[in-house]
């Protein structure tokens, strides 16, 4: 489906002919209709999740975003800005207004307002669900213009098509995935496009626009740090390669200064642009540009080259020295904060594993496996180097930018799974260049009636490079046939890409993860709606000020759906608090009860997959609780829970493991249960073993609720013994 627009459909052609439009007009019409189709395609391909399940918010973080958006629409912007949420991080509370990126919520609320102004009485949830697909559609337009800017319209169109269905992007922008990234990728690409446009034109207006684009990006996602480091790096590369120009000077200065001032208006970012180590590169490049400009001016004034050489040496040395001293003093005095752990872990993939277990524990922060590159990019992975080749062949300011964007983001994508998302636009754009250039060369070859041999024109396509080279030396007819064959090959690949993308979207990326689906014995779909069942139970059956303790993964969902206070949630700002919960979960019951009493915990919620075979449950996450707890409280030691370095829950498990709170809460009364035919009672299907402690007695807690498939289990903390 994605390949269709390249060869316009027949009815359109007929229509075009009947109107006898000029070639230029025809081209415009085709282009616009292709873009419209891509725009719609990008939207509808993301609706699988709505069709499969229902219009619902997915995963974990989106629930927080949804809750805040709801608050924003109900209470207005100023209350949202000043919102102090006492339902999370009990008893510390969280200043929501100052600790989030408001871009997404404001965008959704704005769309909601506009729709209501137009008398569309939609619920805010529907707006939230469809925000990401809507912005994905917008991204395709930006990709078109970006592709046009760096290569030509053809590349732009191909880029729009590729990005519309690329799984790497769809994974974070299906309907219901109401997360910052959904908006932020649009903002990221838009900012880059505007900046490249500003560099190409040297126009203050484009540069100003890119500053606003940057502001929107800052307001939407913490990934803006990528922009504020990539653009200076790009400027630096241009300086080094001698491509410094007035256009660059105008574009960068205006974008940096205004972008920085605008970004400071976001409370969560605040003064980081002048105070944090991550933003210092941009400031350094800003000063460097001034020095460059000054030197240029001096060179212009001084006619004597020797004198200028001496002056250059002195100025450069002084500038570097002053910069280094300023940076050193800033660091020493603590005015400039050092790099954060997340930043370190990006540059050095092994850093988080050794130092910050809480970052390493998140599945989307894991290093990327090769297979997931293949899964998310498919043929783009092979077209990417080809596109790089084309870019290098026709080097310009714009292509240098896209090459740098592609290479750096690919590195980051290798470090963290979730950053594949950031690399996707670059990969799509560069691949689009490859596809467009190859197809263009081939068609030119086909169309040329009696022209000479066009050497090297078909080198681009990596899959057909060798073949085309061999063909080039042949006489004309063979060359034409070869070109036709290669074109068909390219279309075959692209159609494969389209089918792959559709399949991945429907099978892998459209699951809301709050509702689980499995295949039954007869091939039918079985839906496990246990999470919502449990949260609904909490909402209906517990006192309104009850405090629920769970591992932080479920915090946002409990507050958003259960409307109850949680101890920790997915905003992992306080490591000690999370470690306290980790400690409680990994202690014996009588030690844990002390911790729970000190936190006024009323209910404990655990997620257990032993009955359904759901593998991302709390027992499988448990070692991270131990590690995070042990990182703050050394009484918790990881080896106590392992047997010869092996993590097990059966009879051979470590005694501390068999008696810790998490084990008891997960496996309470599980020993009586037959889960699978032909297996002993208490057979854990998620781990495929018979559990080691079947006789679990709870002293200070009592089972309050277990969902129908045992996925969520809720326990009530008993009051202290009346007579003791």
């Amino acid at each position, binding site marked *: 489906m994605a390949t269709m627009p390249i060869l316009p459909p027949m009815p359109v052609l007929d229509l075009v002919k009947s109107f006898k439009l000029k070639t230029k007009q025809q081209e415009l019409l085709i282009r616009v209709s292709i873009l419209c189709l891509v725009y719609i395609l990008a939207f509808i391909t993301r609706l699988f999740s709505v069709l499969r399940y229902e219009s619902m918010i997915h995963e974990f973080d989106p629930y927080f975003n949804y809750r805040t958006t709801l608050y924003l629409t109900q209470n207005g912007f*100023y209350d949202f*800005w*000043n919102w*102090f949420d*006492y339902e999370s991080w*009990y*008893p*510390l*509370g969280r*200043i929501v207004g100052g600790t989030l990126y408001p871009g997404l919520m404001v965008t959704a609320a704005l769309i909601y307002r506009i729709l209501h102004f137009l008398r569309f009485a939609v619920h805010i949830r529907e707006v939230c669900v469809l925000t990401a697909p809507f912005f994905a559609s917008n991204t395709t337009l930006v990709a078109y213009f970006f592709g046009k800017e760096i290569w030509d319209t053809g590349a732009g169109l191909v880029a729009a098509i590729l990005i519309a269905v690329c799984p790497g992007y769809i994974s974070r922008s299906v309907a219901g995935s109401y997360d910052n990234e959904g908006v932020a990728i649009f903002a990221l690409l838009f900012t880059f496009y505007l900046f490249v446009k500003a560099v190409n034109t040297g126009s203050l207006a484009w540069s100003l626009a890119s500053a606003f684009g940057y502001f929107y990006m800052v307001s939407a996602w913490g990934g803006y740090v990528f922009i504020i480091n990539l653009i200076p790096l790009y400027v630096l590369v241009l300086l080094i390669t001698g491509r410094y120009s007035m256009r660059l000077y105008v574009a960068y200065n205006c974008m940096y200064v205004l972008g920085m001032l605008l970004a400071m208006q976001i409370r969560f970012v605040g003064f980081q642009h002048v105070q944090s180590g991550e933003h210092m590169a941009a400031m350094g490049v800003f000063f460097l540009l001034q020095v460059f400009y000054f030197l240029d001016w001096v060179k212009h004034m001084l006619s004597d080259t020797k004198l200028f050489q001496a002056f250059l040496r002195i100025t450069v040395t002084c500038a570097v020295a002053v910069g280094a001293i300023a940076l050193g003093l800033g660091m020493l005095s603590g005015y400039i904060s050092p790099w954060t752990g997340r930043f370190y872990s990006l540059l050095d993939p092994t850093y988080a594993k050794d130092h910050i277990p809480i970052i390493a524990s998140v599945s989307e922060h894991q290093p990327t496996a090769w297979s997931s590159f293949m899964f998310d990019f498919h043929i783009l992975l092979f077209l990417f180097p080809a596109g790089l080749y084309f870019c290098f062949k026709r080097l310009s300011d714009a292509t240098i930018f896209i090459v740098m964007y592609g290479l750096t983001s690919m590195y980051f994508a290798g470090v963290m799974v979730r950053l594949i998302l950031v690399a996707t636009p670059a990969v799509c754009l560069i691949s689009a260049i490859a596809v467009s250039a190859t197809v263009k060369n081939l068609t030119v070859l086909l169309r040329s009636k009696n022209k000479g041999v066009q050497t090297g024109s078909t080198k681009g396509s990596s899959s057909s490079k060798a073949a085309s080279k061999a063909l080039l030396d042949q006489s004309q007819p063979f060359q034409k046939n070869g070109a036709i064959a290669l074109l068909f090959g390219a279309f075959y690949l692209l159609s494969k890409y389209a089918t792959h993308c559709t399949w991945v979207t429907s099978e892998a990326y459209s699951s809301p993860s709050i509702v689980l689906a499995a295949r039954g014995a007869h091939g039918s779909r079985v839906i496990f709606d246990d999470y919502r069942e449990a949260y609904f139970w909490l909402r209906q059956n517990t006192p309104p*000020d009850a405090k629920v303790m769970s591992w932080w993964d479920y915090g946002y969902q409990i507050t958003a759906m259960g409307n109850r*206070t949680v101890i920790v949630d997915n905003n992992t700002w306080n490591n000690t608090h999370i470690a306290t919960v980790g400690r409680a979960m990994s202690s014996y019951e009588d030690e844990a009860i002390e911790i729970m009493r*000190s*936190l006024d915990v009323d209910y404990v919620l655990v997620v257990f997959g032993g009955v359904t075979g759901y593998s991302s449950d709390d027992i499988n996450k448990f070692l991270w609780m131990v590690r995070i707890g042990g990182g703050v409280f050394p009484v918790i030691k990881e080896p106590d829970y392992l047997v010869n370095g092996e993590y097990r829950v059966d009879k051979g498990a470590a005694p501390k493991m068999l008696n810790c709170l998490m084990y008891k809460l997960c496996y309470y009364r599980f020993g009586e249960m037959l889960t699978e035919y032909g297996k002993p009672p208490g057979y854990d299907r998620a781990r495929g073993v018979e559990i080691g402690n079947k006789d679990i007695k709870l002293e200070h807690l009592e089972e309050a609720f277990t969902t129908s498939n045992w996925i969520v289990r809720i326990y009530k903390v008993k*009051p*202290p*013994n*009346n*007579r*003791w």
Partner: protein
Amino acid sequence: MRSLSFFFVFLLSLFPILCFSFNPESPTDRRVLVLLDDFSLKSSHSIFFNSLKSRGLNLDFKLSDDPSLSLQRYGQYLYDALIIFSPSTEKFGGSLDLAAVIDFVDSGHDLILAADSTASDLIKNIATECGVDFDEDSSAMVIDHKSYAISGTEGEHTLIVSDDFIQSDAILGETKIEAPVLFKGIAHSVNAANSLVLKVLSASPSAYSANPESKLLSPPLLTGSAISLVSVVQARNNARIMITGSLDLFSNRLLRTAVQKSGSQDKYDKSGNELFVTEISKWVFHERGHLKAVNLRHLRVGETDEPAMYRIKDDLKFSVEIYEWSGKSWEPYVADDVQVQFYMMSPYVLKTLSTNGKGLYHASFKVPDVYGVFQFKVDYHRLGYASLSLSKQIPVRPFRHNEYERFITTAFPYYGASFTMMAGFFIFSILFLYNK
């Protein structure tokens, strides 16, 4: 017998109408079930029972193996308190058992338990559940060869005297018990793990628990002041329990006996038992030492409505009213040691409340410069008094964006700098553009 039981059932069904039931507004017990081994105890302990009756309590005497025995009907308790004077009962009649007695206490009702040397396992188990362990040797009694009661008949020194009372006016009343208390029964010790149980009457250091008829072969397990003669428990829900190893403590015989402690010249016409059991039963039945705290209020200074949330550094006023039940009405409770905590994981503010003498306690303080979910906590635990633990959750938020100072004096150089910069730029532009 049949008609008698029918009459009892009839009477029982009328009970809720006939008498006031226990309620938070008048906490004194009204309906008391007395379980006896046999009805002769009614006359042998009549002084004690009559004193209870004269205080307005309705006593319902039943044999402990009465098959119609039941503490509750349709989920409602029929009694406010239970007196178990049936030490030898192995199994209660009706639906009553160990768990039922414990549930009765755990739902806020009171219990007096008296055992003696015939104490059954059931009785001992009830005591154990309440944090009191009777001597495991079933034939053992408390023997004291130094502070025994001088009497003509006794040579085994099992009728002992003790005047080692707990120092608490709330439990034992303001009248000092002059005469020592006579005790004849078994020993118990309080469980060290239980923080709620109190020894009201302890044995002297020379006492020990052993079988008086056999020769002592090994050192006794319970000796000296580890032996408790009478213990009380005030549960967390303020249910009160009294446990003693001597049923005779309440008997007319010991209440009326003249007493002289061995080695002492003081002779008393009457033992201290009557005053002791009367006063302690007043405590157990909530006629004394029962506090309530009401109207916990907090206000921002200068406002009249209770806010749902405070801001950091707000000035607030806190007040609570505390009353004591006098047996008939709520009287203001006056003390100078009631404290309020402003608590978030640890107390950020701890203030002693001042009182106006009419039950109102108040304090005003500044909310600390920390945001979070705080609690006003009043934890008042005093010996013999009902414990008060109130907490009220209140979030404290940081400043809103428009609650900061608009202009800061220290920042004036910066304001000056920016305005001169603007002016300078303006002048420069004019000069640059039009000068030539």
